[in-house]
């Protein structure tokens, strides 16, 4: 199944259930551990894998076309602004990559109503922060043709 859970690590916290866009990570009522209830509706999007505080979730490529003995594991570190991947090939080759994910702290976006409202522009073609944010010297591109 695309995602699978190591029951000896999972503590049933439900973070994966909260995030899964497909609503397929559920908690088994008896075991109190997470599992993928519908592997054929899993996009292998890794949202749950990245969200699991225990690192209990892993991926096994779709049985339809992925031979066994491979792994793609991830560590997302929002506070450090990066994500790291490790690819393990069937033949043993290993590759590692790290990429930036954000240049500002999470939570730092300024809400739109913290900017002054240009009420007179409500009927014009300009959107919020325009024309400044277009960064073009003239307004010609947004004004009436």
């Amino acid at each position, binding site marked *: 199944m695309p995602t699978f859970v190591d029951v000896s690590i999972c503590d049933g916290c439900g973070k994966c259930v*909260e*995030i899964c866009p497909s609503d397929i990570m559920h908690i088994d009522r008896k075991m109190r551990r997470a599992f993928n209830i519908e592997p054929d509706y899993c996009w*292998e999007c890794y949202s749950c894998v990245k969200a699991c505080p225990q690192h209990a979730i892993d991926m096994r490529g*779709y049985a339809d076309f*992925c031979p066994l003995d491979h792994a*793609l594991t991830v560590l*997302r570190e929002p506070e450090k602004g990066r994500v790291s991947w490790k690819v393990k090939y069937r033949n043993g080759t290993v590759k590692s990559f790290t990429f930036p994910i954000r240049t500002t702290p999470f*939570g730092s976006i300024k809400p739109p109503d913290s900017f002054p409202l240009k009420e007179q522009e409500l009927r014009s073609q300009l959107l*919020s922060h325009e024309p400044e944010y277009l960064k073009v010297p003239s307004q010609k591109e947004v004004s009436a043709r």
Partner: protein
Amino acid sequence: MSVRSSKSTKYVDSDILIIGGGMAGCGAAYEARYWGRKMRIVVVEKANIERSGAVAMGLSAINCYMGLRWNENTPEDFVRYTRSDLMGLVREDLVYDIARHVDSTVHLFEEWGLPIIYDEKTGHYKREGRWQILIHGESYKPIVAEAAQKSASEIYNRIMVTHLLTDARNPNRIAGAVGFSVRDGSFYVFKAKAVIVSAGGATHIYRPKSVGEGAGRTWYAPWSTGSAYALLIQVGATMTQMENRLVVTRFKDGYGPVGAWFLALKATAKNAYGEEYEKKYVDEQRMLYGNYVDAKPFPTCLRNDSMLRELKAGKGPIYIHTEAVLDTREKEELGWEDFLDMTMSQSIVWASQNIDPKTTPSELQTSEPYIMGSHATCSGAWASGPDDMATDIYKWGYNRMTTIEGLFGAGDTIGGSAHKFSSGSFTEGRIAAKAAVAYILDHPDYHPDIDTKMVESLKDEIFRPMENYNVGKNKIVAGTVSPLYIYPNQGVIRLEKIMDEYAGGWGNMYMTNEFMLNRGLELLTMLKEDLSKVAAEDLHQLQRAWELHHRVWTAEAVIRHTLYRKETRWPGYYYRADYPKLDDTNWHVFVNSRYDPAMKTWYMSTVPVMHIIG
């Protein structure tokens, strides 16, 4: 106690209701708050806005950016490109409107913290292709969602919207929507003065290439379930270009996108004999499809067409030669990041099949068809255009308002405007939201009037699948075979089979004709009747049941449009075998449809394509 009466009803009032918190919905929330400071702006999302929609796993490029500030492109250039890629048929007013605003959206994203890659030599954003820029986009959706969270009055996650509500006094005026909580089963009634639908595109309309565990690995997200189209169709909104389904060429099975490989890394595609084939058929193609084949770049659908011709000639597999271009560590990283940021499955395919892109080429394939409004295709709602651009037939009120008063759309929801992608969808959400604010201010006395009887009957209908299960389950001991009901997934599989076999799916090399389409419609009509007999054991299946409803309505529109357009306009997306040529004399038009909910009848029509840009 019946299932429905055990579910509590919750009422939510709003000025603006945004249905779907993906790229377009987040853009709408942000802009609505900018202009509507005191308004109650509510977002309702069937998943969790933090990672919902097509961008859940991230993206490695922004595919729509003009670069106005560096004089890289003009909005006019973008209209010309989009028009030729779509074989002449786009709403130029809508496309232009996206182009003139999209840069300000991208600059906002950068300010918020989305890492955009710069070209050290030029000091500009690094280009992947003429319209695309490269990003480190793992957190694209969480960043954009944060902006929406700071803008909306309230965000309701895990509520699946099932129906729109029109006003009790005026069936052509929107008044809200209903849905249910996938977590606690509460029934929700949202009242609104304006509604923006931004519920994404549709997959699993057609049979996917993988039918086992890998069925979830469609290129577009499996949770894109056609709600945007079904919600609108059922209240009588006019739809356009629903026949313009999208087929994409992607890395085989993993569906890794090809953009970075073809455009930035300059990889080539060759047949199994090592020959480049893309322009091999251009003379035949010109005879059938006219001068569109001379467009530069070669239109997306024609690139598929060349590949399909090559495959039919027995020259497959088709390979993309990644090994010829990964000569530096920088390029190798770029290639890997492309997939690790937006299609990890492709990396898993490589790892599991021992394909090192540095040494081994990868197979390409064409996908199953998808219904979308934001990519190299433009299915969706027929919308009013911007005041200063739209000609009269394209304008009846507020920008991005559908033919239902007060009902707006953005992103995959809106038809006629291709190549919006992530940034353009967010931009269109902004455009729609600004217009919705103006609409509300212009109608200060309006209060949504909802017919309570209708709401009660919708509540019955929404929970019926659980009722069906309760009633029917004792007829069988265990298992999934019941004479009284079908499960949602059984319905999806029936739908996919009908669409694949009769309406131009991959199983038939995207070929169809009038007889096949009519037969498909007949079988689809029976599936539609069976929808009242779908069963759901729990709330998760109830969500799947309503997703199936939405997919079936979307599919019906696709078939009806495909039947109506008697030509082959987009070879490589689908072929009408009975009308194999592109026919500009008769079909240089939009095909529009309208379902009349009172009469339960579909009406088809054509609307001229106005060329605004020379």
